[in-house]
């Protein structure tokens, strides 16, 4: 009977899928990041930065087995990859998630099962305060940091009435809260835009009518590109400030001249003057033929933190490995770097200006907004 034959073949195929040979390595690292779809650029930079550090480490990294999977920027896919990495690949350390909503879906369950999670980007407030965990380390920042720096910078620059704007989702609300935490002047208007919105004509009209002396905005990805281009063509002259996300190397070429001269806040820039950073920027350009973005820098730092900890302890000895991570004894491309009580960075935050460097748009540090800055949630963290 032909039907049964075809069914039999399918059975064999399916059974084959279930049996995959396990591989041996001393430390398994699972990277979950966005490699397809519209947000792929951020994940690719994270991955490339991380792999560059492993490559440079040479023999020291030979015990690390890196598994990389694409989360498609979908939280349920990320959860399933994490389940797979924990249940069947037996990874020791997870890393790589770009987006806060995906981190919220994956991190609590992963660290709850005793795995380590090193964040290369997303660090939502819910994981920094009451929800902190000794196995969760954010190498990038706490989500509010860059917005807080923008608030501090707005004071320094003498702005008295600022128009603030962010998408209507938790990271957006955190952003505006972070800005207001350090900004002392008046708020002209507080506007929440739609997630994924690409036309900002309405908001620009409100800015024009508001009489504000500066605009602060947090619009990651395509939203920021669209806003900057439309703002530049609108005839509104009010200066804008924002966190680095809309002025990072991944989107800057697409924004174009509209970004020139804009002040943005970051904890990393390619012109931070230290040997580790110089080596990183040169090697990244040589290997990938493009300038690194902040995501590449965080990926690179995360891998180096991991390598530094592995020199002292193995993840199997959780206590010792945790202590080794906490020491943060690696050469960060950001220079000074240490962990606060909630395993989030204490670092300097800079103000950068977008400049044209021989025909390529990039950023230059013009001031330091905050020094040795931690985050607002550390006090709530009990661990």
């Amino acid at each position: 009977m032909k039907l049964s034959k075809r069914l039999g073949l399918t059975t064999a195929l399916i059974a084959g899928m279930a049996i995959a040979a396990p591989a041996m390595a001393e430390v398994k690292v699972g990277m979950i990041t966005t490699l397809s779809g519209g947000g792929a650029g951020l994940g690719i930079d994270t991955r490339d930065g991380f792999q560059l550090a492993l490559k440079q480490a040479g023999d020291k990294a030979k015990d690390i087995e890196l598994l990389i999977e694409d989360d498609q920027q979908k939280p349920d896919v990320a959860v399933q990859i994490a389940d797979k990495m924990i249940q069947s690949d037996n990874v020791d350390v997870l890393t790589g998630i770009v987006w806060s909503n995906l981190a919220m879906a994956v991190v609590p369950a992963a660290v709850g099962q005793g795995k380590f999670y090193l964040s290369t980007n997303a660090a939502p407030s819910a994981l920094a305060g009451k929800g902190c965990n000794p196995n969760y380390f954010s190498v990038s920042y706490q989500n509010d940091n860059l917005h807080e720096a923008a608030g501090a910078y707005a004071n320094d620059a003498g702005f008295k009435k600022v128009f603030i704007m962010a998408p209507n989702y938790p990271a957006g609300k955190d952003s505006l809260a972070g800005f207001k935490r350090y900004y002392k002047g008046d708020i002209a208007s507080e506007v929440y835009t739609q997630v994924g919105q690409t036309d900002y004509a309405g908001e620009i009209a409100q800015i024009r009518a508001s009489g504000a002396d500066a605009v602060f905005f947090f619009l990651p990805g395509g939203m920021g590109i669209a806003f900057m281009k439309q703002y530049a063509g609108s005839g509104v002259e009010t200066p804008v400030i924002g966190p680095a996300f809309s002025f990072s190397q991944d989107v800057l070429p697409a924004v174009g001249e509209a970004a020139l001269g804009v002040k943005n806040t970051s904890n990393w820039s390619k012109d931070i003057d230290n040997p580790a950073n110089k080596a990183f920027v040169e090697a990244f350009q040589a290997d990938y033929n493009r300038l690194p973005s902040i995501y590449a820098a965080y990926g690179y730092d995360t891998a180096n933190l991991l390598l530094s900890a592995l020199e002292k302890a193995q993840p199997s000895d959780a206590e010792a490995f945790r202590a080794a991570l906490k020491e943060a004894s690696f050469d960060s491309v950001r220079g000074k770097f240490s962990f606060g009580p909630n395993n989030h960075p204490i670092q300097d935050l800079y103000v950068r200006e977008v400049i044209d460097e021989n025909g390529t748009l990039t950023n230059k540090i013009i001031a330091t907004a905050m020094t040795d800055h931690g985050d607002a949630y550390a006090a709530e963290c009990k661990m």
Partner: protein
Amino acid sequence: MRREAILDIAIFALLVLFALVAFATGQNFAVTIATKIAILALAGVGLNLALGYGGLVSFGHAAFFGIGGYVTAILASHAANYEPLAFGLPGTTQMLVIWPVAMIVAGIAGLVIGALSLGTSGVYFIMVTLAFAQMLYYLAVSWPAYGGEDGLSFYVRNSFPGVNTLAPVPFFAICASLLALALLVSACLTRSRFGLALQATRQNPMRTTATGIRPFPVRLVAFVISAMICGLAGSLYADLNRFVSPASMSWHMSGEIMVFVILGGVGRLAGPIAGAAVFIALEQLLGPVSDYWLGLVGVLLLLIVLFAPGGITGLILREKRHG
């Protein structure tokens, strides 16, 4: 037995066999994959009732799937935080309580959306169901309570009396049993007077009306049952991930559920299982091969639509579509 009935049973048995082989060889994650297939297939079985038998092409069934998920996550998180819900009712972590609530809420949503949409037909119906789903999606993204875009986590899977739901195999058993139950209900329903009336409204609404059956109530009942099954699937999916987010209500999700049904074979009982299994297998097998795997999935889908219009089950049975 008819060839198709043999195939239905064989496909379901294959899914269970896959989970058992995976468990026996210690591949816990493959059991999770089988669970995911069972749950998504359950959503497909729900949609198939409206789409396959009733000819109601809904592009908004993710709304019911998402509602089931949110009901589950909201009840579980209230129980975890000991915060009462509205009217002082407590939250709960009992699946046996959560399922009916999820199904009732999804059913009510189905009743409202169905009653408002069934006045239209053809492309208008496709689009108006999509519009209602988009409305709920944007509300879930931007409404201040329950996590918005970040979604809602509840960390510990809900419980079922006498079963350790945290272990992969028992949870698979629960999902597979519910899938089997839904298949049975679906099979009985389509053979009943109601089912025959439903299929008649699809094939020839004029003649059906002439025989004294009004299409609207028949279609509405089918739509509501279909929404309830999707709500149950959404509840299980939330438990699988211990997490729910607006993404489960997005038009991509509606599209995917539709893809399971069409890929497997429209109006075939076990079609959604075959469709979901093939889709998930492609995701698992092609994902590691190429960053552009979604494009490859697209090519395969296209080839199947163009050259095998009866879907996978149609291909195996060498038959074109039903109806």
